[in-house]
């Protein structure tokens, strides 16, 4: 098999710190190798600049890129939604994280779409000692902030952004 270029990785400067990211070629699938490459570069920069932590946006699913995102992390925040498929996917990713002995916490996004099911997810987490770090309502300001390329917590100050800020504090307390 000949090596193929499936994407390119970049390092960008942001006011929050360096951002290492990648762009896949047209019709190219993500791979664990690409994720590992991006992580390697991010770690290298973090060590050189004396950064305290690395935040990774994991791939969806439980495949090879997800395993590459998870390995060696201190904590995985599993973002789910209050639906049967949301719970099922969360169960699988938590099982995967447990296999690698990685701690997990949960965030229920758009919990107001089905508060009853959100309660079921909370109970499921409670039975397994998985902290629910936050519950966020559906907020149209989220897609608005994305199209304006402004982080949500800077775009608005409301109940949802407060939940995200509180969630960050809880997660930080868990990893420290």
């Amino acid at each position: 098999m000949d090596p193929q270029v499936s994407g390119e990785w970049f390092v960008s400067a942001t006011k929050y710190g360096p951002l290492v990211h990648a762009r896949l070629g047209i019709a190219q699938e993500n791979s664990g190798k690409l994720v590992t490459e991006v992580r390697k570069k991010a770690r290298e920069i973090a060590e050189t600049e004396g950064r305290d932590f690395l935040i990774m946006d994991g791939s969806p699913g439980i495949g090879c890129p997800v395993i590459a995102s998870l390995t060696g992390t201190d904590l995985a925040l599993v973002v789910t939604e209050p639906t049967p498929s949301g719970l099922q996917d969360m169960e699988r990713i938590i099982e995967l994280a447990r296999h690698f002995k990685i701690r997990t916490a949960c965030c229920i996004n758009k919990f107001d779409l089905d508060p009853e099911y959100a309660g079921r997810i909370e109970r499921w987490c409670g039975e397994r000692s998985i902290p629910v770090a936050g519950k966020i309502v559906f907020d149209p300001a989220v897609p608005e902030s994305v199209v304006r390329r402004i982080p949500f917590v800077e775009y608005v100050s409301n109940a949802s952004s407060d939940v995200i800020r509180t969630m960050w504090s809880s997660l930080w307390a868990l990893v420290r």
Partner: protein
Amino acid sequence: MIEQRRDESKEIERVTREMQERILADLRRIYSAAVVDHWQHPRNFRALV
């Protein structure tokens, strides 16, 4: 010939409509009304500014 194709086309439309209604009925049994509504009318997209 044209008449026959028109009938076939109407039949396909009818079968498709019935299939969609069945899928929707199944979804309503599993997902909340709000989730189905968000699925049918997505709110999470905008044009880039």
